């Protein structure tokens, strides 16, 4: 019996989580799981590697911090020093309190935007891209597991039914 690709539908996140654990335990490959909302613990159940996006975000934040300090140094100290409220801008360190809000905002701006852009690139998303989602109802209230059936199709189907699958569909590769 040949290995088939299956689209298995669930209608509850707890049932889905248990089913995914069982599928992984039986050494069947899961291509993707489509859910209407983030299911906590799903990545652990699928044995995905932990994300590195937090480290990337930290680095982006550091870049933003540096850019902001250099920017304020150039604008307010080197290029066009101004005496605002009796506080002449002759050195960076003496004026740092007034730059702190800008530095903070730039740090957040860089960290947030670059993180989102990284996430889009990593997920292969870009404007006008056609949705890969095989089943529109997974954006509403259904959960779909895109998986390989393993060598024994009928046994897999029985197992999935027992785990609480609502429907099982065989799809062409």
């Amino acid at each position, binding site marked *: 019996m040949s290995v088939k690709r299956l689209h298995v539908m669930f209608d509850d996140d707890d049932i889905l989580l248990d089913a995914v654990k069982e599928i992984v335990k039986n050494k069947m490959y899961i291509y993707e799981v489509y859910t209407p909302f983030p299911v*906590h*613990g799903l990545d*652990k159940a699928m044995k995905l590697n932990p994300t590195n996006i*937090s480290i990337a975000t*930290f680095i982006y934040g550091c870049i933003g911090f540096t850019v902001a300090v250099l920017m304020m140094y150039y604008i307010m100290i080197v290029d066009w020093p101004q005496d605002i*409220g*009796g*506080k002449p801008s002759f050195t960076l360190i003496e004026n740092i*309190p*007034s730059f*702190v*809000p800008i530095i903070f905002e730039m740090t957040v701006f860089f960290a947030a935007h670059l993180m989102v852009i990284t996430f889009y690139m990593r997920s292969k998303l870009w404007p006008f891209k056609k949705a890969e989602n095989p089943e529109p109802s997974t954006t509403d209230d259904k959960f779909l597991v895109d998986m390989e059936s393993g060598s024994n199709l009928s046994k897999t189907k029985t197992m999935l039914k027992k785990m609480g699958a609502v429907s099982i569909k065989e799809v062409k590769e």
Partner: protein
Amino acid sequence: MTDYKFSKQIKRFSIILAIIGAIGIAFGFYNAPSNVEESKEIVAKMSHDGYGGDHSEGHADGYEGDSHGEAHNEGHGGGYGDDSHGASGHEYDHDKHVFHQLQNKPWAAIYVPALFFMMISLGVLAFYAIQRASQAGWSIVLYRLMEGVTGYLLPGSIFVIIILIFSALKFNHLFLWMDPEVVAHDEIIRNKVGYLNIPFFFARAIIYISGWVLYRNITRKLSLEQDNNNEISIHKKLFKFSAGFLVFFLISESMMSWDWIMSIDPHWFSTLFGWYVFAGMFVSGITTLAIITIYLKSQNYLSFVNDSHIHDLAKFMFGVSVFWAYLWFSQFMLIWYSNIPEEVTYFITRIEDYNFLFFGMVVLNLIFPLIVLMNSDFKKTNFIVILTGIVIIIGHYLDVYNMIMPSAVGDMWSFGPAEIGGFLFFLGIFIYVVFKEISNAPILAKGDPFVEESKTFQYYNLD
């Protein structure tokens, strides 16, 4: 699960701390000058040690051109509260001024830790009320520890009140507005007499303290009752009391910070001071709670507390540290930027005379926890939470020190026997009272409807 027994080591340790502290405090009072001549001698001795050198140098440095001289004089005038300052009697006044500062020193040295430990207890009480009012599910296993820490609230507030009474009886000059002679010569304080007068001051203090202690005792009693009685009505009552208390707390805490801290500088005011003090007490309270939790867990009393609970406490430590820094900076930057003489003196004194402490405290309270606790794995590592906790506690002690000392003793500050003794004395009493109170009740609030949720609490991102 065994209930906590007040261990002999803790008892001995806390009593030793209190005794060492008491000796330090006594030494501080013994060393304080009793007249102007003695204070001159002390200052002369200090300048031999190179201290006076630093002091005069700091004053000679032009800080900010024009505004400086004016602002600084204002600062001294404000601290002194006497119009004749800077006129003919300057020499004499200066000595008398220093004498008052040195006389204040041991009082301020015990006032800082008395206030600090009372506020830890108050911060935990607010945290407890928030858990109750939000009907949090994760923190039930920590309720008895929180109730233990808030057990110090009554003795702690009594210590503060005693020091305030001594102030009112003119044993020291911590609160300038309590001196009718100063008020008579000071228009700004005279305009505030409707609020800042001794009877109203103590009436307010009694209202705050009785409100806090009342809430604390009612919830403690209800919580203990819940252990043997599964009625949901007790839970509802606890919720209602806590929600009501939070309203009272936010108002009373803010006014407490004006009365007991801000009025030491009767000329100066800051509109977000109440929030700022609250953030400080909140983070030190949560940190203390985390340290006690980890200690008792290491003694095998808290088998039901898991990594997720520690992780949550550390998240609070991290978040509230950042919140504190946000308020600290908001207060600092606005006053620094606008540069209004009667406001900016507050920070000029701190930057000139307390430079290292003032900015060092920000490193301890913001930079250190920010960098160390950012990593998710570190937040559940007990050793790192304890280490950061100790740094935060020291940092917030210095924060309170920075609120009180500059106005009380000016540039005559130091960390002598009275300061260290005062800290150890109140630390000893705090440890004794808190652990005694924890041992007085079952270690788990087992009657709470959410207790099972709390025991099995699991942060999804932790293994």
